[in-house]
């Protein structure tokens, strides 16, 4: 028997490093940032951990909804577990148990200054013509972290200045700091990698594939995430300066998703929408169609009540208009030939009052739902239904026991002669041609703009859209979302609920509301539990930003400051006389 040769036993393992101490808070990671203790979930980056205790670390390329690039080097901080004592990018490094992070040491400050200096070396002197002024991270961080004058004594690199990347986005390649947020966004969120970095080193620039436009439906978001003025919105280009504008928290009315927006306005003109963060609805994005859906708030508005069609149109004084409307509709109430058309663009408060008046004042049993025709839909944000409040319409009608019929039924009923009069709360209809057919009826219309149906109205009352009142939209999921008023109703327009209440009062219903809040308080209980735990004051009290408001009241004779409405150029005698002096 041969002795089984034992294989040589492996030499005993040398003692390894001591096991790490158990975490202070099991299941979490504990660290110290600038002397403050922070407890976060494992995998959290240092930059998020610092934000959790109120320490702001500057960054350009980091975005919490995009992948991490760590190429701007702005967020470098001192970490006690750094290899070789180097500064580590806070956006990339996960918090380790027991690490000490310092963000305000002289070394970190020097690094921030140096990074900014390098970023600014080739940055063009464009603040005066750049739309980003006032919301530019370079400006903000320069004043907060740098403030050193330039040391450059050679000309800067020149690249493309006004590159039309696509229908909605303009690129200035010189301003780009190559953080690649736009590239990562198109690749990861829009899932359409149309942008990329070309060339290398000093000469790198952002571009699309040669000959291809940036025409994705979500391309407008790169304008928001670009920290500098490289990517700017072509629609908003040079329209105004952002520090004059105030922001109201609003909801996009482009489709039934109800993306949360900031509505930027100045002196009762809406300039743009910007997406507002809401993890449950739209994260931080909006589609391009929604971005440009503010235009109807400014242009083509009906501001004075009028009576009669086409050439016979006469303006109606405000006090007289509801009585006239009631006069037009009353004969048909008794005869039962009255129809009520509600628009799912109107807010919940508008529709609640309209339904109450329809049920109790006009004595109808059903309402017809108008609204814009269906559009395109995708699997990200956009819904086919291009009306913000269809669900709200259904809920309001159900609350008052009214059946909801489609618009086609109304056209048929009108054609058959069963309907001779129409009360339209909102004149958005899916089929403009059909609106012509409705022109044969006696129409009392409440409308924002001079739409096809409004032009056929016997009595037209001017209505205020969501920018001019406080209210609620209910999106396709049944989620009720508040929007706040930006500016007071323009001209003589009033919210739909105010017009409907006046009509109801003229019909004998005692209705009077002073605000959307009162409407919801009075009529909201009709909805029962349909809105879940929605509360009227669900908009946080902070968040509305006011711009630099011009001095109040305008000039001595009532003109707005700067004479927006009266700018004579070459007409007055005095001007001619003044220009003819020779000295």
């Amino acid at each position, binding site marked *: 028997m041969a002795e089984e040769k034992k294989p040589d036993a492996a030499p005993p393992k040398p003692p390894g490093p001591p096991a790490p101490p158990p975490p202070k808070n099991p299941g979490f990671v504990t660290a110290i940032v600038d002397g403050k203790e922070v407890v976060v979930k494992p995998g959290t980056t240092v930059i998020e951990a610092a934000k959790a205790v109120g320490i702001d670390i500057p960054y350009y390329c980091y975005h919490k909804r995009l992948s991490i690039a760590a190429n701007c080097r702005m967020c470098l901080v001192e970490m006690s577990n750094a290899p070789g004592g180097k500064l580590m990018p806070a956006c990339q490094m996960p918090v380790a148990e027991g690490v000490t992070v310092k963000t305000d040491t002289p070394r970190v400050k020097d690094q921030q200054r140096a990074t900014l200096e390098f970023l600014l070396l080739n940055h063009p*002197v*464009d*603040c*005066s013509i750049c739309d980003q002024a006032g919301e530019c991270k370079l*400006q903000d961080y320069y004043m907060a972290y740098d*403030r050193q*004058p330039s040391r450059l004594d050679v000309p800067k690199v020149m690249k493309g200045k006004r590159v039309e990347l696509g229908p909605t986005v303009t690129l200035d390649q010189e301003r780009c700091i190559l953080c690649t947020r736009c590239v990562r966004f198109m690749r990861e969120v829009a899932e359409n990698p149309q942008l990329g970095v070309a060339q290398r080193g000093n000469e790198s620039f952002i571009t699309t594939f040669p000959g291809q436009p940036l025409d994705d439906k979500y391309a407008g978001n790169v304008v928001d995430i670009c920290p500098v003025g490289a990517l700017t919105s072509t629609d908003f280009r040079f329209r105004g300066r952002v520090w004059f504008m105030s922001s109201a928290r609003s909801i996009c009315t482009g489709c039934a998703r109800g993306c949360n927006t900031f509505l930027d306005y100045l002196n009762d003109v809406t300039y743009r929408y910007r997406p507002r963060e809401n993890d449950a609805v739209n994260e931080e994005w909006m589609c391009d169609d929604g971005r440009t859906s503010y235009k109807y708030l400014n242009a083509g508005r009906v501001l004075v009540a009028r009576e009669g069609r086409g050439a016979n149109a006469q303006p109606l004084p405000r006090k007289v208009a509801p009585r006239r409307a009631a006069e037009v509709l009353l004969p048909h109430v008794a005869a039962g030939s009255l129809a009520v058309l509600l628009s799912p663009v109107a807010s919940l408060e508008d529709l609640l009052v309209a339904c109450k008046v329809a049920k109790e004042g006009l004595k109808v049993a059903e309402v017809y739902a108008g609204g814009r025709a269906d559009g395109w839909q995708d699997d990200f944000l956009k819904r086919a239904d291009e009306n913000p409040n269809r669900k709200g319409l259904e809920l309001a009608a159900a609350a008052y026991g009214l059946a909801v019929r489609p618009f086609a039924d109304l056209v048929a009923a009108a054609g058959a002669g069963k309907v001779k009069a129409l009360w339209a709360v909102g004149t958005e209809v899916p089929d403009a041609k059909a609106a012509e057919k409705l022109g044969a009826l006696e129409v009392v219309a409440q409308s924002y703009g001079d739409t096809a149906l409004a032009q056929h109205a016997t009595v037209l009352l001017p209505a205020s859209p969501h920018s001019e009142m406080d209210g609620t939209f209910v999106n396709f999921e049944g989620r009720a979302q508040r929007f706040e008023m930006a500016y007071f109703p323009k001209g003589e327009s009033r919210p739909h609920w105010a017009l409907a209440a006046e009509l109801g009062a003229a019909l004998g219903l005692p209705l009077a509301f002073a605000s959307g809040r009162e409407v919801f308080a009075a009529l909201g209980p009709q909805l029962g539990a349909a809105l879940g735990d929605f509360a009227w004051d669900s908009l946080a009290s902070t968040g509305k930003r006011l711009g630099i408001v011009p001095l109040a009241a305008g000039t001595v004779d009532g003109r707005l400051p700067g004479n927006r409405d009266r700018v004579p150029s070459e007409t007055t005698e005095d001007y001619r006389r003044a220009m003819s002096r020779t000295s």
Partner: protein
Amino acid sequence: MSEAKGVGGIDPRATPGSAGAGERPPVGTLAPAGEGELYAPMPSKHMVINLGPSHPAMHGVTRAVVELNGEIIEEMKLDIGFLHRGFEKSCENVTWGQVFPYTDRLNYVSSIMNNVGFALAVEKLAKLDVPERAKYLRVITSEIHRICDHLTLVGAMAMELGAMTVFLYGIEARDLLWDRLAELCGARLTSNYARIGGVARDMPEGWQEKTLKVMDRVVAIREEIGQLLNRNRIFIDRCRNTGKVSREDALELGFTGPCLRASGEPYDVRKAAPYLVYDRLDFDIPVGSNGDNFDRYLMRMEEMRQSDKIVRQCFEQMAPGEIIVQDFRYALPPKPLVYGTIEGVMAHFKLVMEGIKIPAGEVYSYTEAANGELGFYVVSDGGGRPYKLGLRAPGWPMLAALPVMTKGSLLSDLIPTFDSINMIGGEVEQ
């Protein structure tokens, strides 16, 4: 006489012309002539007249309701507020740098002192030190404006007592100085010269020589005015022993500045709590003894002499250097940097859009303006706009003391008294 109070607290029972008679007959009765009396006392009451608000002698716009017993002022009530423009509230609406035109219009006769006072207050809050040359420029322009203020007072006072020539001489001198300031600051009256951290512009070429020549001329004019007024019996009779305020009363009433020093208290902020470069300059404080209008007039003349001395010393001591602090947090970058570098234009934009960020806190800072202690109480909330500005106007205590000063004096004594306290409507009513 205070039992029955009629309108405005005026006693309807008071009768004049009964001095020395003892018992006053009530209103409405005709007392027969007594033994040895040449006339029968007539029933009469005090006359209430209204001086102002539009009145050449009511500087600024001030309304004085004067109750007269013949020519004797029994009571005087002041009605102010006609020039209140909401300075303190308006400044809450603008950035720190935009406050300077508002301060120009406070004491509009010596506006640079308001600019400098406000700038010093904000710099105190921000703990900002100003370059040397800027300090000297501030002192030079402040003292020149002090001379202008005193010339205005002397001229107006003389004019209202009938000496029109003196007024025009004063205006000539003031105009020469204003021309120099127009070359330096850009405007004669609303100078807008000081900035947070320094001053707006440096002296142009040749300005120093021109200004010294002009100041020689102003000295000559001042001597002529002195010649015309100082020993003129009419002027002395009108001003001497009228509007007298004793030293204790002046201190109690809150007087500061020339009016306090004319009453005998040698308190001058430039000596008591020196700011800018006043501790390096050699000048004296004139002090009065009588506390009357003539003392206050002489006070202004002597202060002009001292201010002249100060300006000449500053010109000698001044060295070339920066005129504003080179810190992009507080001062707009120099124009070449704004035109040509991105750093300069970014700093420029941030300062113009958002204003200078002054650390949160509150401070009270006081300087010696032409009229007295000009105090700015500044509250900052850390942002680019003032949270609250409070102003201590130097003319306020003197104006408030006017009824006390003129009680029992003749109506014609009211005029030099009102002139000599130098109430400037802009600062008193803000």
